[in-house]
């Protein structure tokens, strides 16, 4: 009976063990059940399948010697052409017909005609200018169309050819840009708030013969003395200074410069003039747009000339970069807190205009604007900001997290983002951190998308993955981090809308897959090369595509392709 006695002993031992059940055991068992059911009930589905983020771009199956495979984002796979334009169809054409690439004129035409919809009136966005916390003015679309027509006609009639735009972010900036596109003038966009010598040097290099600018910011005397090719000047005068006579030019200075003011040009023509845009069948090619790229503070700006096709391809890439349900729509309010003299914020503004979203302009925008100041007075849903601005915001908000509860609340929200792949839900604990959050706009919680761009080779601060995740928690919005470069309109690569991952300790950073109008190659450079087994892919970033000025360009920085096929700095 050996087995019998062993079984007896086992039975006795088990009964003893279970017999110890007391109140505390009930408590611990209840705790176990609670933990398991809480985790089941609060389980959220990630916004995007994690495997889709595990490989975000495709490399070509064949590569040239000394180069890496060609990498393209999933929106423009190998074998398909890169996104080259807006697919503008003639009105009334079938939805499935092949459209043409279009140019900036089609962007404004779409703003005026509203978003295409088969039934009912088409939705149109509003154009707003923010003058301060209290004053927000709306501009009528027909007024802006009239301004575009009259300014364009005035400049071209007086022999203008290359128009330099030296304005802060404003309606006049965008209207002058469209006027140049409609009337066959080359637009030269100058970065605002520069010293007199730099302005003169930029004017000389671009060969501009007309300048549209604000009085007070433009050193008229200095420029006229050093730059004799200036033929026309248009002052954009605000309401307060309207009474002064800006047409008068001081004696001895620039007698041959034709000076006029924006308001005068608009008022001198009859009210009915200029309400119609030039006909769509106009086969004249719209001229290029010239930008200046500041590579490093103190060094000379680089002149970059983009054709209309470059810009339109960049706009199309930005439109397709976001999932369909979250794209720009007439319900959005777009604000650029970054200066529009860089191509990335300008391309996003044009993309917002093309999608008939409402667009607001605030002249406070600059490289190191304060986010709260730049967004005051309105409640934007989409904002473009510079990395310096967001770094400041991040530091301020992180500094406010002092207590244990606040840091726990922040930690829980970060976990929701990073581990569960979903935006943090508003809960009681999350609302404890409300005062930590930066005040973006008048109504908290409206911001849904924040764009920020790193300029390749320009020394802008790189935002780490952890900083971006913190910004998502603080602003409650998705953050898209883009890589921009001098010769590329729009961005080279940008992180996906739903990519909230943080790798390791979060100090690394990446820029996501290439956008749908760009393909990226890494050329071997010294020790940074593509290894034969394909595990290490590094080199100098070279880009090709319809959004690149000149077709092919090298960015001049060393990058690598990580395991998930995203682009990053080495």
């Amino acid at each position, binding site marked *: 009976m050996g087995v019998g006695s062993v079984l007896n002993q086992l039975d006795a031992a088990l009964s003893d063990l279970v*017999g110890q059940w007391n109140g505390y055991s009930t408590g611990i068992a209840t*705790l176990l059940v609670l933990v398991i059911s809480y985790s089941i009930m609060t389980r959220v589905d990630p916004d995007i399948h994690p495997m889709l983020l595990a490989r975000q771009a495709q490399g070509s199956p064949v590569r040239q010697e000394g180069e890496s495979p060609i990498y393209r984002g999933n929106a423009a796979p190998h074998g398909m052409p890169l996104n080259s334009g807006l697919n503008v169809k003639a009105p009334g054409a079938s939805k499935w017909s092949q459209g043409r690439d279009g140019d900036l004129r089609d962007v404004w035409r779409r703003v005026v005609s509203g978003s295409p919809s088969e039934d009912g009136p088409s939705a149109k966005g509003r154009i707003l200018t923010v003058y301060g916390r209290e004053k927000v003015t709306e501009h009528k679309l027909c007024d802006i169309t009239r301004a575009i027509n009259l300014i364009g006609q005035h400049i071209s009639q007086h022999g203008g050819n290359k128009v330099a735009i030296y304005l802060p972010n404003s309606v006049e900036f965008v209207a002058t840009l469209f006027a140049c596109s409609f009337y066959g003038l080359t637009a030269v966009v100058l970065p605002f708030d520069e010293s007199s010598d730099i302005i003169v040097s930029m004017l000389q290099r671009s060969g501009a013969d007309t300048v549209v600018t604000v009085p007070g910011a433009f050193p008229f005397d200095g420029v006229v003395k050093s730059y004799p090719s200036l033929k026309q000047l248009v002052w954009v005068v605000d309401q307060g200074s309207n009474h002064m006579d800006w047409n008068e030019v001081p004696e001895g200075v620039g007698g041959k410069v034709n000076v006029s003011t924006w308001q005068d040009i608009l008022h001198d023509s009859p009210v009915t003039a200029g309400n119609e845009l030039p006909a769509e069948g106009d086969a004249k090619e719209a001229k290029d747009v010239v930008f200046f790229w500041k590579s490093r503070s103190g060094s000379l700006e680089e002149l970059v000339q983009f054709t209309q096709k470059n810009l339109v391809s960049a706009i199309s890439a930005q439109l397709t970069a976001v999932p369909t349900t979250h794209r720009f729509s007439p319900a959005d309010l777009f604000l650029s807190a970054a200066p529009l003299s860089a191509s990335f914020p300008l391309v996003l503004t044009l993309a917002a205009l093309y999608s008939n979203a409402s667009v607001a302009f605030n002249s406070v925008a600059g490289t190191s604007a304060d986010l709260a100041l730049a967004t005051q007075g309105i409640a934007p849903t989409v904002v473009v900001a510079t990395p310096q601005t967001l770094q400041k915001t991040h530091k301020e908000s992180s500094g406010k997290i002092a207590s244990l509860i606040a840091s726990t609340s922040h930690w829980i929200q970060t976990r929701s983002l990073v581990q569960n792949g979903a935006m943090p839900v508003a809960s009681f604990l999350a609302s404890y951190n409300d005062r930590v959050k930066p005040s973006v706009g008048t109504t908290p919680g409206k911001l849904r998308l924040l764009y920020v761009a790193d300029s390749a080779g320009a020394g802008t601060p790189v935002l780490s993955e952890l900083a971006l995740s913190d910004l998502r928690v603080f602003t409650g919005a998705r953050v898209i981090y883009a890589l921009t470069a001098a010769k590329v309109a729009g961005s080279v690569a940008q992180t996906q809308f739903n990519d909230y991952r943080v790798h390791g300790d979060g100090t690394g950073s990446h820029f996501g897959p290439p956008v749908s109008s760009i393909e990226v190659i890494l050329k071997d450079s010294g020790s940074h090369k593509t290894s034969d087994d*394909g595990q290490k892919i590094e080199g100098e970033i070279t880009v090709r595509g319809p959004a690149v000025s000149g077709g092919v360009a090298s960015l001049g920085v060393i990058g690598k392709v990580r395991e998930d096929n995203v682009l990053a700095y080495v």
Partner: protein
Amino acid sequence: MEYVNQRIAQEANRNPQDAFTGLITPLNLILAAITLYATYQLYKPAPPAKLPREPPATVFKTFTPHTLLPYNGLNNMPVYLAVRGRVFDVTSGRNFYGPGGPYENFAGRDASRGLACHSFDEDMLTKDLDGPLDKLDGLGEEEFESLRGWEERFESKYLVVGRLVAVGDK
């Protein structure tokens, strides 16, 4: 029945002071360990999902008839064939072009004339590997038609991994 009576007697004789009433009992320790382990497994931070890298890309090479010859599927080599100066990787069509297949003569060689004339004979291939490439003279319009058809099918199915030049050219 005997056993049950024995057990009942055992239980009745137990000393009540031996009962466990405190927090720290073996059972409680086991339950606490299970709870802590479950909490740990549910809430431990997991790194993001990873996929291994794609297989390394083939390097585009310039071949001469000599260097192309080894790529005929023997010795675990991939199967390449050349059509009008472009080298295609037909390893996925090994059953046709590899060793033992009906078109095995084309592997590692310039197959342009053979495809144009729909013939797998030996005399369709260039004999002299050091000489210039087959210039495809003496072929009529329909042969060029069929060659174009073959080329289109190759382009859609197989990858171009190099180009073929004669020995001495580059």
